């Protein structure tokens, strides 16, 4: 038998999800506990499990595996847990402490005992070289060759495995960074070197230096891991191309990933957004809110015109309540999402104002929610869902966990009820209401930050926790449609398999409409295009049919503003003497879109430029969503559960998702259970089962 299959593996903090795509386009999946000391073990175990189950002999000569796609939180975890290489930073004299003094501010205004994030590289491992360029790239101070050579000797004796190089204004001209790398490699040919003009040529030294440090810090670890994984797969006969999912939501080669491992940060959540974007295209929904809720956090992103929104910088390891400024900034192209401490394991408490608070602490998988009977004492969101009748021990996906309603009730009273004089049930209502409100507020803030209005968006919910909360979130956000797709539990890994080959090259280049640098702009765009092509084309050689798209973008602002808005450049033409007018017109339109009103007579500046090259992925089969139904599904059982619409506990239909046939509908209140999640409908919600098994949930606004 020689049907071809593809594999995807998503290594997460708790589980490694492995998905096999069969030749006919459907999936088999498994979850294996992540093996932190050697993550490839869990991947191989999952691969072997699925191969056995599908009757595929991986070691046969005519290998049937055509592609292996991998995403991992390994780089992220190495940064968070500080398990990277012995790394030095070399920077411009006078700027040794940029990554330590950060923004000189406190992310928590009212905490006297605040602890600021520790720099990734300690001061004793940070060195300087005399050299200096101006903001326009002019040499203000020559590169100190002799000093650099002496420093290389010092680094050689220091036992460093990896070196990050970041000089001031190197995004304009990286000559000196390259020169230092050459000197270093001449003396230490085997050392890892990362230079900021290659890793992240964007203006703002704190973000750029931190990004090059992060890259250097995880590079030895990631390079050796990727080599091991490839070798192990080869030994088992999997000799197909191996690709990595990057944070921007595309595929990159193993070689690129080993050189720029910082681009792998956030690859798992990126997979989720690609999953949602693919579904958005299949369902023909051009404005989608992707809602992914797991055990620890909820992630929300906006997907307009079937493409997830992207950003040029983000923070990893936010230590304090996911607060802005409490993590380390990484300047790379990334799918833009907001992440808050709201998951099934998030712990409920009561604050000094007698208000219920949720998270950011999570009970995780050990000890887990009180209901897991593993010793957890604190009430969690999962405990509230059990108390409210939304979860039930008989239909809970994880068969090795026996949910205890008694432990959940006791914990709810202990964590919330006693302080507020509430019984377990009312405490649970409060916990659910507050966590839903938190997520709704985060989603609204995210929309405002991106100049979007939430009206008219369709929500796509996936991840173990999302379908439990999604219908309530839909109400709170005033949305009209909610989609719970099949395969929601392993959405990210499925997303990997529909990701394009892509690379986004970004560079800061500053010019103004008053005095527009036509040649400079053309050069930047050309070199960014070459750079992005150089990453995508080699990966494509096996897949010669792919057609590439090139998208070019420039971030602009009024002179004097600090926040840029992206403006798409629509074709590959070069700029001429009308460039300033053209860009002004485009910017003004975009600005009005964001803020409703443009400002006359002000110069406009360009700040950063980007070029994204990507392959075109064949769109999945179009699914026409319909609320037409031929019959009403009949529930096998009923149970007493809380209905958010009426605020009462009511008799609620409980149905196994596998028993719902296409074309049937179901009126709330209802609970739809499946292996990896549970979907909840309130009394004003209606669910219509689509041809592909998708649940389309709508609401009756008048009944709310």
């Amino acid at each position, binding site marked *: 038998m020689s049907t071809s299959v593809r594999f995807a593996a998503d290594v997460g903090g708790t589980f490694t999800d492995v998905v096999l795509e069969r030749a006919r386009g459907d999936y088999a999946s498994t979850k294996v506990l992540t093996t932190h000391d050697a993550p490839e073990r869990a991947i191989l175990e999952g691969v072997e499990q699925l191969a056995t189950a599908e009757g595929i002999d991986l070691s046969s000569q005519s290998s049937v595996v055509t592609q292996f796609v991998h995403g991992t939180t390994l780089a992220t975890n190495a940064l968070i847990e500080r398990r990277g290489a012995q790394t030095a930073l070399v920077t411009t004299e006078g700027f*040794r*402490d940029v990554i330590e003094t950060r923004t000189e501010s406190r992310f928590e205004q*009212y905490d006297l005992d605040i602890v600021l994030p520790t720099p990734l590289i300690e001061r004793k491992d940070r060195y300087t070289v005399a050299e200096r360029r101006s903001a326009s790239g002019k040499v*203000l101070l020559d590169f100190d060759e002799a000093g650099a050579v002496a420093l290389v000797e010092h680094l050689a004796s220091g036992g460093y495995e990896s070196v990050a190089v970041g000089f001031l204004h190197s995004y304009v001209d990286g000559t000196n960074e390259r020169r230092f790398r050459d000197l270093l490699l001449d003396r230490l040919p085997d050392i890892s070197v990362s230079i900021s003009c290659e890793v992240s040529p964007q203006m703002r*030294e704190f973000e750029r230096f931190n990004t090059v440090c992060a890259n250097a810090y995880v590079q030895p670890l990631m390079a050796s891991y990727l080599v091991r994984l490839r070798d192990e797969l080869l030994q088992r006969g999997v000799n197909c191309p191996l690709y990595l999912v990057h944070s921007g939501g595309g595929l990159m080669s193993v070689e690129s990933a080993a050189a720029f491992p910082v681009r792998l940060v956030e690859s798992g959540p990126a997979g989720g957004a690609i999953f949602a974007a693919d579904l958005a295209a299949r369902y023909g929904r051009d404005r989608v809110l992707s809602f992914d809720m797991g055990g620890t956090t909820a992630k929300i992103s906006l997907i307009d015109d079937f493409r997830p929104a992207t950003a040029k910088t983000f923070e990893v390891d936010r230590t304090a309540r996911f607060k802005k400024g409490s993590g380390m900034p990484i300047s790379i192209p990334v799918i833009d999402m907001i992440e808050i401490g709201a998951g099934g394991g998030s712990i409920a408490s009561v604050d*000094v104002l007698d208000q*219920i608070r949720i998270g950011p602490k999570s009970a995780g998988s050990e000890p887990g929610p009180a209901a897991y009977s593993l010793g957890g004492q604190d009430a969690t969101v999962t405990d509230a869902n059990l108390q409210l009748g939304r979860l039930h021990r008989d239909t809970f996906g994880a068969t090795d966990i026996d949910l205890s309603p008694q432990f959940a009730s006791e914990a709810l009273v202990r964590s919330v009820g006693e302080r507020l004089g509430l019984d377990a049930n009312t405490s649970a209502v409060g916990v659910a209401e*507050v966590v839903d409100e938190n997520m709704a507020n985060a989603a609204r803030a995210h929309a405002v930050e991106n100049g979007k209005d939430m009206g008219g968006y369709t929500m796509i919910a996936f991840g173990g926790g999302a379908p439990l909360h999604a219908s309530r979130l839909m109400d709170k956000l005033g949305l009209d449609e909610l989609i719970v797709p099949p395969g929601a539990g392993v959405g990210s890994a499925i997303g990997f398999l529909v990701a394009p080959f892509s690379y986004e090259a970004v560079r800061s280049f500053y010019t103004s409409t008053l005095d527009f640098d036509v040649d400079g702009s053309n050069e930047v765009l050309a070199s960014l295009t070459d750079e992005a092509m150089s990453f995508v084309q080699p990966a494509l050689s096996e897949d010669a049919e792919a057609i590439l798209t090139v998208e070019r973008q420039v971030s602009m602002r*009024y002179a004097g503003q*600090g926040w840029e808005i992206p403006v798409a450049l629509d074709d590959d033409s070069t700029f001429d003497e009308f460039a300033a007018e053209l860009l002004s017109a485009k910017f003004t339109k975009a600005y009005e879109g964001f803020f409703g009103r443009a400002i006359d007579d002000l110069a406009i500046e360009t700040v950063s430029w980007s070029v994204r090259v990507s392959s075109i992925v064949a769109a999945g089969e179009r699914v026409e969503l319909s609320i037409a139904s031929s019959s009403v599904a009949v529930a096998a059982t009923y149970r007493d559960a809380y209905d958010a619409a009426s605020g009462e506990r009511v008799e609620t239909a409980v149905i196994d998702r596998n028993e719902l046939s296409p074309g049937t509908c179901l009126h709330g209140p209802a609970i739809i259970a499946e292996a990896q999640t549970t979907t909840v409908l309130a009394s004003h919600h209606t669910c219509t089962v689509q041809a592909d098994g998708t649940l389309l949930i709508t609401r009756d606004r008048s009944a709310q």
Partner: protein
Amino acid sequence: MNASMNAADTLHYQVMWNRLISVVEEQALALVRTAFSTSVREAGDLSAGVFDRRGRMIAQAVTGTPGHVNTMADAVPHFINDIGPDRIYPGDIYITNDPWKGTGHLHDITVCTPVFRDIAQSDATTTETLIGFFAATAHVVDIGGRGYGPDAKEVYEEGINIPIMKWAERWQLNRDLVNIVKANVRESDQVVGDIHGLAASNETGRRRLLGMLDEFGLDDLAELAEFVFDRTGTATRRALGGVEPGVYTNEMVVDGYGEPVTLAVAITVTDDGMHADFSGTSPVCGLGINVPLGYAHAYFTYGMLVALAPELPNNFASLDVFKVSAPDGVILNAQHPDPVAVRHVLGHFVTDLCLGAIAKALPERVPAEGAGALWNFQASARSADLANPRPPVEMLMFNSGGTGARPRLDGLTATAFPSGVRTMSVEATEQIGPIVIWRKEIRPNSGGAGKQRGGLGQVIELGPTEGYQFDFSAMFDRIDHPARGRCGGGDGAPGKVYLEDGTPFAGKGRQVVPEGQRLILELPGGGGHGDPSERSPEAVENDRRQGYVT
């Protein structure tokens, strides 16, 4: 209302309260996104809040500056009073930058927008009824006069003063006022742009609030406001219970402008609240470092909140328990027309002054003194050669010294406190104007010794690029009077300012940095906490290895 409130109502009100806070956060975010002012967008020098129809603040966004804590809360009653309750119409927008009715200096413009809602009457008609206000404040790029700096003798020299008036009435923009503003400020497009931005951010708040009231089926804010005030008031009084009633005093001497300034406070703690009296403080000075009392009030309140009740939100009920007084004419109670442009320098010391007083009651909470005032400067780049003119450029930069050591933790290095502002990227600053920052690095040995070491200051070297010189407005303190240690901890290092060739440079006032010269700023460190001999050997060794102490 509480007696009759059941558990479900309570949860409902909690959800609405959370939503109201998210409404003002959105209001603030809208402002940050559109602001031209460096201090707004980079430093969070703004505030945004929602008020009930009587002008009591119900919720305020958490932004970068405690200076707006009370000043913002007090501003709206002034608007109601000065406009006149019978002249408040739908579609109105009010404005002021009066230092004594707003946030302490002319550079801060406050815009206030009334919110009306159609409310059903008993006779089945609806009436447009005033239900509350939004207000937002931002530090604008320029306000005319001499430009930003401490050198004015009277507030008249510091720029245009807009008394409380209408920026728009019934949706009609007051074009005369727009023209007056435009004619009186530098960078007028940006300043007017920022005023429009303030109005737009209030409008964002107004729309979100009306949507929220629709969703929750509320007519107005009255009951929700009562719930918020009741909850907050109870929690605030509970927090105050942590301090033994009594009178707590402190004095602090700082550099001032020309001669040292003594700041004095006596805080009276009772069961009902805390009252700070600033008698004994030096008289106003002839230059613009004077502080309107409202601004001192804000930094006193902030200090007490961080020490006692860091989790409490700012609103009418949490702020109402903190009162201040001072004789007219002391430097923390400047009167019109005293100059007040750089009131932040002494204002920032008020927090350490008041924390120092209360330290006797809260020895486990209160840190040593820190660098306190930000080391801001305004560099006006001008052509070095008048025969060869170059375009003038204004640059504002924020920099911080070290904070005081905490009872259980070292001080923070090069970090703002009590201000919450961020510094700007050196690369971004150099893109804006003809400046080169040659060094911006930790200043070793500048933290006060102690069981917990004071935060380190930093060293900054800067100069104009070729063809330019700087008219440089210095606003630096703690050069002659370092941050004091606490509980046996040593003082932080004092600040220093000088030109590269050794020429001395004054800590305050307008001076020239000539072409080809570098100005060197050594920012002060924070005081230490506890006996230095008790510092752990590991901490001492780490200080040495990292080069924090050499």
